């Protein structure tokens, strides 16, 4: 029986090619969407839900004095605190750009969800111009532990140079996102602070870990109250809120793209449904003859559903495969970005479910039509 279904499926090559192309494009789009969702909806780690972030109240980009550190650490409810300042760095050429974070070594492992081996941590702690690099950064430029690397940046040093020489003391991984592909370099705050020409004794932001995550909001209010009458004032909120805020704009754009893509996706599947309907309609006499030969209504309906499923599964799987290949290419470009795109196993399962679902939906109308088919009327004479 499968042979009969396959023969009918391939009977009109041109129409089959166009139908498969429609399904292919629909699922290529769907695969891209599923991957893009990860960019617009990054997964937050557990600590992001409660970790606090303190920035300049007037302007998020404006610096805060490093002198606030001691006072923040003494706020009741603060278990650990750290600060950091950032710059854009690159290796050898401007295209090889990555984020450089300068933070006090003792605070890095308390306030951030990062890990490094004990001996590498120890080496870095005692090496003022040492650095920790993420695995993606190490891999990208083939760096080795102990290697001396010149990092170029936009931040000028007191001697007028913009090159910061550092020793790679270890590899730092994100404990909550072990597969993260960010390229980051962590330096001693002191090394950057004493070397830079401007902005000394300032930080970009503070990070605090509250004793009790449930009381994060109260702790945030206490920190801001502490600097209520200071200049500059601070604004403290959970990392989750900050991240959500930051991605909201991107999310809005992503939402529009997703909506449009979904509309296109369904339109293409409607086209497939219409083609299936037309195809079954053209073969009414053939189906009536098969009924006369003894094929039951259920068998005829199964044949039509089989053709529809073949269309959606073959076109859809090629589409998802094409999306995976395309994303694999894009991924190489996205390696330096904080978000990663990927077609997960769950996305493939959802896609296959959709293919089967749409196969059944597309077959519903022609199957209904053939279920009601009158042999007598379809054959005219017997």
């Amino acid at each position, binding site marked *: 029986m499968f*042979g009969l279904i396959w023969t009918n499926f391939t009977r009109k090559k041109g129409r089959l090619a166009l139908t498969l192309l429609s399904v292919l494009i629909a699922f290529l789009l769907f695969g891209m969407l599923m991957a893009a969702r990860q960019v617009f909806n990054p997964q937050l780690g557990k600590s992001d839900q409660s970790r606090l972030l303190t920035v300049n109240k007037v302007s998020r980009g404006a610096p805060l004095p490093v002198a606030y550190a001691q006072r923040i650490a003494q706020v009741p409810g603060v278990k650990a605190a750290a600060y950091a300042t950032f710059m854009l760095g690159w290796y050898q050429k401007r295209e090889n750009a990555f984020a450089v974070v300068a933070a006090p070594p003792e605070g890095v492992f308390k306030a951030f969800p990062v890990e490094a081996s004990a001996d590498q941590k120890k080496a870095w702690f005692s090496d003022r111009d040492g650095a920790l690099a993420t695995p993606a950064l190490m891999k990208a430029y083939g760096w080795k532990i102990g290697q001396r690397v010149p990092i170029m940046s936009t931040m000028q040093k007191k001697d007028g140079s913009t090159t910061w020489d550092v020793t790679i003391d270890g590899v730092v991984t994100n404990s909550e996102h072990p597969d993260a592909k960010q390229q980051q370099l962590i330096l001693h705050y002191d090394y950057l602070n004493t070397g830079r020409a401007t902005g000394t004794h300032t930080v970009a932001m503070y990070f605090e870990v509250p004793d009790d995550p449930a009381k994060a909001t109260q702790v945030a209010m206490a920190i801001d109250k502490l600097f209520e009458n200071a200049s500059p004032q601070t604004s403290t909120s959970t990392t989750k809120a900050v991240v959500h805020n930051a991605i909201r704009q991107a999310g809005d754009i992503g939402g529009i793209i997703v909506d449009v893509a979904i509309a296109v996706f369904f339109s293409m599947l409607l086209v497939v449904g219409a083609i299936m309907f037309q195809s079954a309609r053209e073969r009414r006499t053939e189906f009536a003859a098969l009924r006369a030969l*003894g094929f039951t209504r259920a068998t005829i309906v199964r044949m039509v559903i089989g053709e529809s499923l073949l269309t959606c599964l073959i076109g859809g799987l090629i589409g998802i495969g094409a999306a995976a290949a395309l994303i694999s290419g894009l991924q190489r470009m996205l390696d330096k970005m904080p978000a990663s795109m990927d077609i997960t196993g769950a996305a493939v399962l959802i896609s296959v479910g959709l293919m089967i679902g749409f196969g059944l939906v597309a077959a519903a109308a022609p199957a209904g039509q053939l279920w009601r088919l009158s042999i007598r009327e379809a054959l005219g*004479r017997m």
Partner: protein
Amino acid sequence: MSATEATIKETTTTATEPALVQLHDVVKTYQRGSETVQVLQKLSLDVPRGDFLALMGPSGSGKTTLMNLLGGLDKPTSGQVIIDGQPIHQLSDSALAKWRARHVGFVFQLYHLLPVLNAERNIELPLLLTKLSHSERKKRVAAALSLVGLHDRGKHKPSELSGGQEQRVGIARAIVTDPTILLCDEPTGDLDRKAGDEILELLQVLNAEHGKTIVMVTHDPHAAACAKRTLFMNKGVLSEEPEA
């Protein structure tokens, strides 16, 4: 028996061997808008096993309706249709389909072959509904093709065959399951005289040498003359003589 009784009984039917086809007081009506049209009027008919019966009559006389009832494609409004002891008027739609697959071979005027399948695969279609193995199906298809004289045309698609050859493939498809009865609807209606004669000759062979019971609808007296007997249908009533 008179035409007004609308009852035709084959004289050779005996009490010990019931007729293969038995129709008792069959009425068939259709609704056309608000009008009820009675197509068959308390029709009774016996067709013994091994018979070759031709049904003639003008268009709209009820011949095709009668064939539809014999083939289980339609059900009577009242009365009984019994084929080989099975009261098929009582069967459900699904059971009727299965019954057709096992007991009826249809030969259509317009052949109704699937254009995408070659002759062998068209003939194989009814066998797909059986539990026969692939090799067994191939054997049966080859035997049917050989019987209709097309053993060298098995790989040809319908578009590569003449009308007469297409009808032979249609006949091979009808007999491949060794059905109880062959129902032929104007089997020569779309063919020239020579091809038509060959088809009629083939039907005679199937009847005479293979014992197939055949009921054939035709407008052509020449075709009807090839049958063992002819009945005439007029306004839903069967008779042994054409209406004057």
